[in-house]
């Protein structure tokens, strides 16, 4: 067993070690412990990049496994391929940023131990989610991330925190029960066909189902992931959760927890049920586009800046879904890029909202008219974020949107135009935000006293803004992560002999 393969367990254990120390050390060590451990994990992830074999990015690497329940074929098995590795990097990055941000956050003044404990816990759980190859293990991590987030929202959130926490937990918990049913059904099918239970991903992709059953299972999985992603009719938990959570909380929620949904859609729905995917593909694409459009409308009509950002991330998720189900190289590239990019931009935007609240003590759009005129650094960084999230060339989201359109064009012009319309909307609301922040006039007597962004917060902000530029300017670096994966997936989808053997 190669030492390299311990990467995932290590990066899951380190935060837990930190959590352990935090519990038993006095409170004045808490922040330091949290920062040290999360940055350790971040460094670990960075150092692991050279170890990752980009040539064979479609294959699973850093494979580590222990049998958990042999009789039912449950194994504690972790590995990364290009897709999940990218998500892993995003996780470590954003968790570090969130923890750094919390150090000086105005909300986080009480019960520090629990707070940082929950964040470290979330980080290790997320690594588990993106890394696990066993469906039950995946489900465990997927659902366990609810608990710390429930507490983060409920304890350190804003006014409506309890309500939002309930809503968040109940929506996702109940929807993921359908996922559980689906998973066990897949395992039972595997038992029927191969005579042994197994929850191992690469065993289960060998299953063949009659189309009806496959669509049924696809829907079971979809219910969970569509609520998690979210796609429009199922999105109502998100504005509350993101709106009421403390800044760092909404950062983690938007940047990582939503990615769990899309990642799982890509990996499990498409990976396990190719026939159903091909059958339902047009519907899914249109659904994605619809959710882009609706979410954008909702966004513009918001006057609470945090909910504004929340809705904007829904529309971005629409791009991810639409691109994913185009089922061609451009589309898949687009959706994965969008996942990563949105992880960065949305966290930056939420930090922006939190920062402004720190100065103005309000999320109200009218209240913060022109509010950042006298904070040049902050204003500059916000501008970068906004433009890249709006999809300007050179910005990170540009590739997501552009490639989606390109992928859609491969099918038909009209589809491409639809997506273009969606992109147009997102430009619209971002411009509206910028106008409010920069151009609107307001009596400036109070604004001049605002001190500019600095210290830990600046560091955290940069931590998420700089990679945005990297994504925008050198996309090919990231294509290297997942192009092999995409090609193998497409070949698996379309060259695979369909139907039952």
């Amino acid at each position: 067993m190669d030492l390299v393969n311990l990467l995932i367990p290590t990066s899951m254990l380190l935060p837990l070690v930190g959590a352990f120390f935090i519990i038993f050390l006095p409170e004045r060590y808490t922040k330091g412990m949290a920062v040290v451990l999360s940055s350790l994990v971040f460094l670990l992830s960075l150092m692991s990049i050279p170890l990752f074999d980009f040539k064979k990015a479609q294959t699973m690497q850093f494979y580590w496994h222990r049998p958990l329940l042999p009789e039912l074929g449950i194994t504690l098995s972790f590995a990364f391929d290009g897709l999940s590795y990218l998500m892993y990097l995003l996780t470590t990055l954003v968790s570090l940023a969130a923890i750094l941000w919390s150090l000086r956050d105005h909300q986080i003044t009480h019960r520090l131990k629990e707070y940082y404990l929950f964040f470290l816990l979330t980080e290790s759980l997320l690594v588990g989610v993106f890394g696990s190859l066993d469906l039950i293990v995946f489900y465990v991590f997927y659902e366990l991330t609810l608990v710390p987030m429930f507490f983060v929202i409920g304890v350190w959130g804003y006014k409506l925190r309890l309500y939002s926490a309930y809503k968040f937990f109940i929506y996702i918990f109940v929807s993921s029960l359908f996922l559980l049913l689906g998973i066990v059904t897949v395992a039972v099918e595997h038992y029927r066909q191969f005579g042994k239970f197994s929850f191992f991903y690469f065993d289960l992709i060998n299953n063949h189902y009659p189309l009806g059953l496959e669509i049924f299972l696809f829907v079971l999985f979809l219910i969970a992931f569509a609520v998690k992603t979210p796609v429009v009719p199922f999105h109502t938990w998100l504005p509350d959760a993101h709106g009421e959570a403390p800044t760092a909380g909404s950062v983690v929620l938007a940047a990582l927890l939503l990615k769990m949904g899309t990642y799982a859609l890509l990996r499990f729905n498409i990976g396990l049920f190719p026939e159903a995917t091909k059958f339902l593909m047009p519907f899914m694409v249109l659904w994605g586009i619809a959710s882009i459009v609706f979410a954008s409308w909702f966004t513009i009509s918001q006057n609470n800046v945090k909910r504004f950002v929340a809705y904007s991330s829904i529309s971005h998720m629409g791009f991810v879904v639409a691109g994913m189900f185009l089922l061609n190289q451009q589309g898949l590239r687009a959706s994965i890029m969008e996942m990563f990019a949105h992880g960065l931009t949305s966290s930056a935007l939420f930090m922006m909202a939190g920062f402004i609240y720190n100065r103005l003590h309000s999320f109200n759009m009218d209240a913060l008219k022109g509010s950042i005129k006298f904070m040049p650094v902050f204003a500059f960084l916000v501008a970068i974020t906004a433009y890249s999230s709006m999809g300007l060339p050179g910005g990170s989201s540009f590739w997501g949107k552009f490639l989606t359109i390109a992928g859609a064009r491969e099918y038909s012009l009209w589809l491409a135009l639809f997506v273009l319309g969606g992109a147009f909307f997102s430009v619209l609301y971002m411009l509206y935000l910028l106008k409010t922040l920069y151009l609107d006039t307001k009596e400036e007597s109070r604004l001049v006293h605002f001190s500019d962004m600095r210290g830990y917060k600046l560091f955290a902000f940069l931590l998420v803004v700089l990679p945005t530029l990297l994504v925008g300017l050198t996309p090919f670096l990231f294509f290297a992560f997942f192009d092999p994966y995409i090609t193998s997936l497409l070949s698996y989808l379309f060259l695979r002999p369909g139907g039952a053997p």
Partner: protein
Amino acid sequence: MNMVVEYPNLSLLIPEIVVLLTGFALFTLDLIYRRLSHWVALWLSLVGYLIAFLYLLFNISATGSTFYGLYVRDPMSSLFQLVMIGLTMMVLPFAQQYLKHRGSLYREFYYFLAFALAGGMFLVSSYNLVVLYVALEAVSISFYVMTALLKGDFLSKEGAFKYLVLGGLSIALASYGAAFLYLYGGSLDLREVLAFHHKDTRLLVAGLVLLLMGFAIKIGAVPFHFWLPDAYHGAPTPVTAYMASVGKLAFFAPVVRIMPLVQEHFANTWVITVSIISVLTMLYGNLVALVQRDVKRMLAYSSIAHSGYIMAGIAVAQVIGLKAVLYFLVAYAFMGVAGFLVLAVLERSQEWRGYLEEFSGVRFHMPWLAFAFMLVLLALLGVPPTVGFVGKALVFLSLSYEKLWWVAFVMIVATGISTGYYLRLIALMFMKEPVKGVEFRITPVEKVLLVFLSVLVVLLGAVPIFLWSLVSPSAEILFKR
């Protein structure tokens, strides 16, 4: 007339005998000293149970049957007895504190505990209707008495009377069914009765249905659940914990034993009846628990709901279903006992009326207790990786194995409903301001026990192999015969 006397193989019954002797020793002491000291009673019973526990633990693999086949020891009975004795030992310290604090004069509690335990141990290890009947009565009567044990408390008496009436009804139904089965199979041994083939199965079905109804009352399945909340509410809380854990194991055991014997020619009846009962039970339990203000009653209804989940597993008369049921049963025993024991600790403080809102900010008074209770509630809710989750996942697995989709969907809905009240408790404990002027007292022993229980609830789920390695062979063997 001279009969052959098969001299019984008593080595199989040593745990039962030890428990019984403990009971009698306590009884004798109570007769000798008018006021038996709580400490003596506690330690004596602890020692007795510990001996039985260790003996079982070291002879866990012992199997066999004696007393002309009246008594059967197989892995399942060993597992259940192990869990029962362990839980009884856990309940004892709490009960001792509780009784001392409530100033109850009754020492009967200790030996009725022992007798109930012995009855339960016999109940889980026999196929013979008479033995089942006697053991059932032993458990039930001890429960009636223990429920009524609170001196001068009308609720306790009321709960006891309701429990008595419905319990009597259930026993009447069950034994009536037993009579029919005896008439059908010409034997009092369930194995022979259910293996017996006859073209006219009316008697068999009638008997089975009556028997099921009887046991359904005992386990609080829905059309017959009326007694359960009142009994659980009225009883002294440690007793409630005992009934919710050991009682549930004991009362489910015979049904679990019948389940592998179900045959094709009445399998349909079985599946339909049981699944309908289970669906009703889980929906009703969760819905009513949602509107409770009294936490004890809330947990009582949640225990009804869990009976529903377990019944859903029983509806699947397959080996996988049996495994799920066994796992879930043991899991619920742990969760239920922990939940009620937390209440038992809280009730010891003055001005505690057990209403929901009084839980606000408990975390600031006793963080460890709150932590333990949170884990237990999450387990009851079925959040991974707790035992509750593994149990539910297994039930889902067996349901989809039998293609009982509708039951599975109802179960999802029911779980969704249950989210409401469990979360409310957690949120109250951790996210609300503490109520002023309430002082709680908890002994270190209790603290350790509670944390141990809750961690156990998580660990057994996170590393399911421990429990599974006990559950799986039991199920296999039950199905082999």
